[in-house]
């Protein structure tokens, strides 16, 4: 696991996990104690226990979007359920805004969920007997907000997710994409600080999925929540994440920024995910630029450092000279030569030139 450090400029840790274990089966706690923290999932399986989450520690910072990526059975959803306490972790500590989550009693937990957490589910989890509006207003109503107030707030949410005019529809009358919009609106109705999304777009068709991802990025641009996002789709993870945690058999294989994961896969397992990823679509100029070299004079073209390479490649390739890379304040922070871009575009597929 390479970088556990937060990216520069990130806020304080909102969620902190310390050695979280989740083991299913009878007598799981005892078995875990006996194994003194070193869990071999195969040995446990022989004893009739299934290891869901195995010694996971990480932090999520304020306003950060952490994607937990893994194939089915990797324990990613279980981890999310531990952090939302839909299931209780077998061992370990989970802190949410400094609060010891596992020490909360039932009442405090409900209070926390009513004020701080929102969650979106893979199969939407909409209440079939309630209309769109009633579904969205539901978390407010269980909190005890008046009908008038909650309906008003729910209407704002309907507008936010672009379902105007459908507030009196029932979930069964909506398409999958629209249903998930309702799920998103409902999870945001109480203005939570922390937003959990459990494979929110996996049940949708590819085109709709793309549309919903754009929608999600737009919402996140407006709202700036702290987000835990679970997916089995590596492309989706790359597209959305500030950082990605890749899980396998309950263990976090690597936790890093998308660029670092693509450039420096920590394990063979991670590398197999990254090998088919078109790098120009993932990497930003920043991650491949050279430091400013005073001896050479850059050309006139200036590219922003957080631009995706694909979007500026054509322009850079047309330049003879090095291109200046600038930060948002238009200061030159590095340079990039077209030969370097060519290497990113065509050189990385074999996986041999780790030095890209």
């Amino acid at each position: 696991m390479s970088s556990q450090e937060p990216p520069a400029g990130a806020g304080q840790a909102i969620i902190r996990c310390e050695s979280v274990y989740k083991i299913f089966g009878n007598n799981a706690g005892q078995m875990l104690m006996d194994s003194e923290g070193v869990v071999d999932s195969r040995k446990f399986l022989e004893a009739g226990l299934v290891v869901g989450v195995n010694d996971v520690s990480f932090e999520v910072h304020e306003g950060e979007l952490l994607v937990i990526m893994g194939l089915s059975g990797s324990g990613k959803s279980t981890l999310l359920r531990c952090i939302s306490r839909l299931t209780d972790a077998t061992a370990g500590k989970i802190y949410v805004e400094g609060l010891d989550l596992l020490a909360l009693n039932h009442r405090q937990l409900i209070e926390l969920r009513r004020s701080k957490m929102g969650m979106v589910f893979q199969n939407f989890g909409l209440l079939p007997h309630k209309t769109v509006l009633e579904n969205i207003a539901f978390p407010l109503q269980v909190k005890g907000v008046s009908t008038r107030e909650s309906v008003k707030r729910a209407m704002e949410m309907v507008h936010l997710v672009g379902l105007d005019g459908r507030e009196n529809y029932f979930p069964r009358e909506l398409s999958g994409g629209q249903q998930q919009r309702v799920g998103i609106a409902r999870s945001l109705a109480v203005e939570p600080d922390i937003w959990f999304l459990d494979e929110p777009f996996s049940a949708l068709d590819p085109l709709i999925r793309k549309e919903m991802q754009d929608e999600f990025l737009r919402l996140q641009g407006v709202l700036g929540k702290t987000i835990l996002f679970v997916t089995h789709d590596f492309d989706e993870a790359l597209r959305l994440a500030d950082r990605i945690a890749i899980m396998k058999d309950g263990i976090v294989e690597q936790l890093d920024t998308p660029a670092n994961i693509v450039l420096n896969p920590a394990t063979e397992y991670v590398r197999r995910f990254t090998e088919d990823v078109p790098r120009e679509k993932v990497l930003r100029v920043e991650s491949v630029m050279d430091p400013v070299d005073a001896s050479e004079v850059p050309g006139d073209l200036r590219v922003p450092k957080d631009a995706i390479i694909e979007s500026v490649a054509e322009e850079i390739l047309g330049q003879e000279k090095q291109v200046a890379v600038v930060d948002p304040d238009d200061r030159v922070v590095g340079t990039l030569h077209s030969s370097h871009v060519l290497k990113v575009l065509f050189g990385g597929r074999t996986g041999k030139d780790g030095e890209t």
Partner: protein
Amino acid sequence: MSFLAKHPKIVQFAFLLAAFFLLCLSISPSETNYLWRLPPLLKQLPGIINDSVRYLMFDWMPINVYDPIIEDYEEKPLFREMTRTVSGTFLFVINFVREIFLGGNKTVVAFTSWDFVNEYPWARWPALPWTVITGWAIILGYKLQGRGLAVLAGVCTMFIAIFGQWKPSMETLSFVLIAAPVSVILGLLLGIWAYKSRFVEATLNPLLNVAQTMPHYSYLVPVIVLFGVGDHAAAIATIVFATPPMVRLTLLGLKKVPADVMESGMMSGCNGWQMMFRVLIPTARRDILIGVNQVVMQCLAMTVIAAFIGAQGLGSNLLIALNSLRIGTGIEIGVCIVLIAVVLDKMSLAWANKQTDYFADLSFVQRHRYALMALAVFLAGSVLAFIGSFLFREGFNYLYIVPHNKGITTAPFWQTTVDWIWDTFFYTLKGFNEFLITSILVPMRDMYLGMPVAATFLLMMGTGYILAGFRSALIIGGFLLFIALSEYWDRALITAYMASFSVIVSAVLGIILGSLCAQSTIASRMILLVCDFLQTFPSFIYLIPVIMLFGITDTSVIIATIVYATVPATRYTVEGLRSVPPVLHDAGSMLGVSRLQRWISIELPLAFPHIMLGVNQTVIFALFMVIIGAFIGTTDLGQLILKAISDPQGTGVGLTLGLCVAFIGLAVDQMIRTWANERKKALDMN
């Protein structure tokens, strides 16, 4: 040879049959031969049950109760005080509702005394004019669903009024209006409890199984002992009978709630209460509603049977009419019961499907328009009744209440029809009747009675083993052993013969009918509607037309049973065939199979497990009906149960007999259900 190798079960079954017949031939009938009949070791059971119940009622846990009459404390057994309190409460509530419809002074008496009422004759509750109740039913129907239900409700209530069945109908209705809600609430609570605790579920499950296969009559006997005779006892028996399906369906519905929905409720911050009543139960609504519906239907089915222990209303009138062979009156009463059942059925469904509109910004009049309409109807009806008191100065005020049997009646017409049928078809019917009895029923019955007990065990347990495995065979053996050790083995064989004859005919009829209808979408929908409609008929109603045609004979019972039991067989066949994935139809068509080939080689094998579940239902239905048939004089277990009702020592006998019937049903159920579920899993047809 390869056929036999491929179907080892057929070989096993052939060996089983061979062994069965060998046993039948080799065991000689004699009282002392235990292979022929087991000794009645459980003979003492009814007595033991009686004694325990008596101990519970009269001796257990005496407590001091203040008696206002002798102005002193008196020692009374706790349990009896409890049942008395329950009886009193029920009686009061039933009378209260009844007097809202029909007027009376019992509610006033409950708060004062008979002396008070006798002294002041004005102290009685006036009846609502029938016009008001009709109007209310129409408004309610309109509010719940719209014009269709309003018309249905109006037509039904008017029919009841015009045909002079108003009073007994309202009596029945008041009884259902108490029994049904209590059953629903009780069933809902038990269902929730079972959902919350696995232990409760495991305990409740066998109890529910027995409760749902015990014949209706058997509930009556212990209820008489514990609660006496009357409307309250009938209501309690009905509740005991109607609650199990509600528990079942509540549990089923709650278990089916998707994990996503449950988790979304938790993440919305629901506490336990909100979780149950705002997330789980509404999401499980469909199943719970079917439960409510079943409860209403069971309550109406019990109205006639409950009349045996003193429920007033249509049921007791029907019994009297049938006893004196007044078929015309019987038909009219039967129609009234069916009409009430249909209206309540539709209303309960519509009520549950109703949605609220949050956006409507309504004025006071709009918001309360139904209440205001109801009030207007009440005033108009009262004025009408008042005017009526001048119009019909002599005789009855028809605008107030149509007195019992003073309305229009079609009884003479029906009576003439029956007479005509008898005159015209007497020899045909008699011939058919005699043929059926002498050539089929009696030989079949003798065959059943000629089976040695060892052979029966071998056949049943062997079939159970082949179909459902060793465990099922043992369970079936246990059920049979209970019956064999009781005194009632021979009677049970007679019940079994009548039921199995009906089941075979019903299953064949149902499967053919269902298969024909399943060929077309429209026909399927039609036949399912017909099945729905027939299932709203209380079982007793089926006896009316057969008595009309065949008089009081075994034939009548068997034909009524066949008609009644064909309904589930047909329904399950249609459902099973329709649930065969359409892609298999397409695949079959592209392979060039004909319709018949498709039916035989694709649809039937896939739908067969579901069809067998239908046959399973058919068995239970047939058993119920055969037992009810005891009312018109059969000589099986049912007759003894019926006798037990009027016997002060009947509790033990009645319960033991009820258990015998239930165990026959459960043995078959165990066999078929286990097999069908495994088969369904193997075919991936869930």
